[in-house]
């Protein structure tokens, strides 16, 4: 392996309005290597690569390719320089076929009839070479995520990419699909490609990368060869000195054997019986969902995004009404109860889409912290809001939950994603609850914030809180849950106890195979 870098980025700086996303960052890519770009959320990994791909303009810094200084001001420039990028959120047009998506924007042989047979033949050759089989004539919206990922990679290869950037490519993939992806990457590197692999998952970089660079808060931390490095160094690089790694949930839970099963009580908190939700069309959105969740228990709901997770959460909260079945809270039928009463009777909710469902970006932090409880004492009396109490409580919550803000009257939209999530968690935990429904509670959070959320959930579990943890992050579920149920196309295909947790088994269930009884 040649050690002269083919690509060098030096002194890159990028600001968005007043916030500095990248500060004097450097990056080097060697020929035929898989280079992991590791860091928590907001570390600047994607921003750095978006600059390389021409999507963002850098404020300052230099990029050189094959020892020649280059200027990339649009994705078109990047493609000309044989740089390809696979984005975390697939940039695909769902109403077009796979073939149309791949050839879009390239020179087409029969450009006045759209007979794409010449292109199809070329793509098939690529598919064989890199082991990326996809049916070209299917509408792309009908394909599962793992296959759509292959299409994204084919798009880049078809444009002659020699440097391939993959941004969080394993999001939404089952463990089996991740393995397949890693195999394909190896084939590409063997055939002279160089790959940048962006991820926040340490295990992934360790299993597939040759070299790893760590970013934190928009700065370089360290670059190490895979075999020179130990896990500890990377963890420290990602989280910095602020976090107590030894006592963290993420890095120490389970190592001592203590997982908290002793806190599970006999009383059932939430009971769903044969819950149905019919959609307007033909496919049912939820089908025969039945489970019991006990006090002090954490039940995980695993599954690839879009398999009914949101509907499940909304049925329990009463945002959506089921078309059949029963929902009981502490042995009381709550189907007739409107959402605000359910919240008052002890359900706490962390919604999936924090900006859409859980947060008012134009209201103050204090408003956001009491949202939903603002009609009740102590915040309100006789229809008037008692702002002194609100601000005092808000100030306390800001302190307890370590929310980075200038104060209770700061505008919500000024907060970063991680701090918005802290507001939602503070709100969910700020009054006594016996059931927590948390949907992707750590999506987009940095590691210390994630750990904070985990420790809060585990603490409340000790006090008897029942938690329904709906998450697309399998590692998170494996870390926290007492049981994991898998949701596939609106149905629970199986439930596993902690003693039987096995990544690949869950992965199989996520693609629709029923659990072996």
């Amino acid at each position: 392996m040649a050690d002269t870098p083919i690509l060098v980025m030096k002194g890159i700086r990028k600001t968005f309005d007043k916030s500095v996303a990248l500060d004097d960052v450097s990056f080097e890519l060697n020929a035929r290597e898989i280079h992991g770009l590791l860091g928590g959320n907001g570390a600047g990994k994607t921003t750095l690569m978006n600059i390389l791909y021409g999507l963002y303009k850098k404020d300052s810094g230099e990029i050189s390719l094959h020892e020649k200084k280059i200027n990339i001001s649009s994705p078109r420039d990047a493609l000309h320089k044989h740089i390809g990028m696979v984005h975390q959120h697939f940039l695909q047009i769902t109403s077009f076929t796979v073939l149309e998506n791949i050839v879009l924007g390239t020179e087409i042989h029969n450009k006045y009839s759209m007979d794409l047979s010449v292109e199809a033949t070329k793509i098939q050759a690529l598919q064989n070479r890199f082991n990326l089989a996809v049916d070209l004539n299917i509408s792309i919206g009908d394909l599962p995520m793992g296959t759509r990922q292959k299409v994204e990679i084919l798009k880049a290869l078809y444009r002659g990419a020699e440097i391939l950037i993959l941004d969080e490519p394993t999001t939404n993939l089952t463990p089996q699909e991740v393995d397949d992806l890693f195999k394909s990457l190896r084939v590409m590197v063997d055939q002279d490609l160089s790959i940048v692999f962006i991820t926040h998952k340490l295990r992934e970089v360790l299993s597939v990368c040759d070299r790893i660079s760590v970013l934190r808060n928009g700065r370089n931390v360290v670059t190490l060869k895979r075999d020179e490095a130990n896990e500890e160094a990377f963890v420290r690089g990602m989280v910095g000195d602020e976090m107590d790694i030894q006592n963290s949930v993420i890095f120490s839970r389970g190592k001592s054997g203590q997982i908290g099963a002793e806190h599970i009580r006999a009383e059932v908190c939430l009971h769903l019986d044969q819950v149905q939700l019919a959609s307007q069309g033909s496919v049912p959105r939820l089908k025969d969902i039945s489970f019991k969740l006990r006090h002090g228990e954490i039940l995980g709901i695993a599954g690839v995004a879009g398999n009914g997770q949101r509907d499940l959460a909304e049925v329990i909260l009463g945002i959506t009404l089921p078309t059949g079945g029963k929902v009981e809270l502490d042995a009381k039928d709550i189907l007739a109860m409107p959402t605000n009463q359910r919240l008052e009777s002890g359900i706490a909710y962390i919604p999936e889409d924090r900006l859409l469902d859980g947060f008012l970006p134009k209201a103050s932090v204090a408003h956001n912290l009491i949202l939903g409880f603002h009609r009740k004492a102590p915040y309100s009396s006789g229809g008037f809001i008692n702002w002194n109490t609100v601000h005092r409580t808000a100030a306390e919550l800001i302190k307890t939950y370590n929310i980075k803000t200038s104060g209770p009257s700061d505008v919500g939209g000024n907060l970063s994603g991680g701090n918005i999530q802290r507001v939602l968690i503070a709100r969910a935990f700020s009054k006594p609850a016996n059931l927590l429904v948390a949907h992707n509670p750590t999506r987009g959070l940095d590691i210390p914030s994630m750990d904070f959320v985990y420790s809060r959930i585990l603490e409340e579990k000790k006090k008897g809180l029942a938690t329904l943890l709906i998450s697309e992050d399998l590692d998170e579920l494996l870390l926290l849950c007492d049981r994991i149920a898998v949701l596939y196309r609106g149905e629970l295909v199986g439930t596993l106890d902690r003693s039987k947790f096995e990544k690949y088994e869950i992965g199989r269930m996520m693609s629709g195979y029923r659990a072996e009884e």
Partner: protein
Amino acid sequence: MTGIETPLILYAKLILLTMVPFVLASQGTMLGGRTGVFNVAQEGIMLVSASIGFLVSFYSKSLTIGVISAMLVGGLFGLALAYFTTHLKMDQFVIGLALFFIGVGLSTLLPKLMIGVTLTPPLIPTLKDIPIPLLSKIPFIGEIFFNQNILVYGAVLVSVFLWWFLYKTSFGLSLRSTGEYPQAADSLGISVTTMRYLTAIVGGALIGIAGVYLPMVYTGTFTDGMVKGRGWLAIALTFFGGWKPINILIGSLFFAGIEVLSYKVQVSGSGIPYQFLLMLPYLATILVMVFTFKRSTIPGFLGQNYDREKRSL
């Protein structure tokens, strides 16, 4: 020519004639929408193009120059829409409504300034029917389809051309991608801005011809508010036709049929209020949208501006 012209033939011929402003204005709307530019100023653009096109024809004594000037006016309004929404990233509906009002205002102001108030309206000659050799001699069909004015032929050709262009060329594929998902198009090196300017201008020009058609075929002069809601109907028709050129062409036959019917009802004294008939196209559009909602063919980013560096949390 046998000399036997049944009322049915006349009626069919009239529908084709009436179809033209609907076809052109809707194809213009559709073209812009396919890249994400949602024009809602049709009514205003048609009025101002009719007004200026008429004035230019009147003074230049040439209908051709009149049509060209209407295209330029329409294209200019399209350019303004594109500039305010792609460069300044202003709300498309707000700009569209502003352009509508500007169009309406200019359309009445300019004739007053240039011609003033006269007892007898100034007139231009109307477009003549051009029989197509041989084809126009076919019984029934020949008179209906092949003895029309040039813009009737033009409207059909434009529709077929747009279908071929959008679905059978690589440029059309790129163009459609910018309206479906501009991020995806941009990431593949397709310029969203160029596409939006291009379709907004060409679309505006088509709407301009739709406007000038009215004085050139119906009245020979410009009267205030003569577009009479056809611009708004064109938006409805675009949805009715599912943003597809051929479906829009077919849909405009239906819209034109109702317009012709409403004239007939007015003179026949049948007791059906003609306002009821004028409402039918809107009703039909709503029904079509209700029933085709699942297989919606509306461009994914219709009416939404694209900003490359905008970060989503």
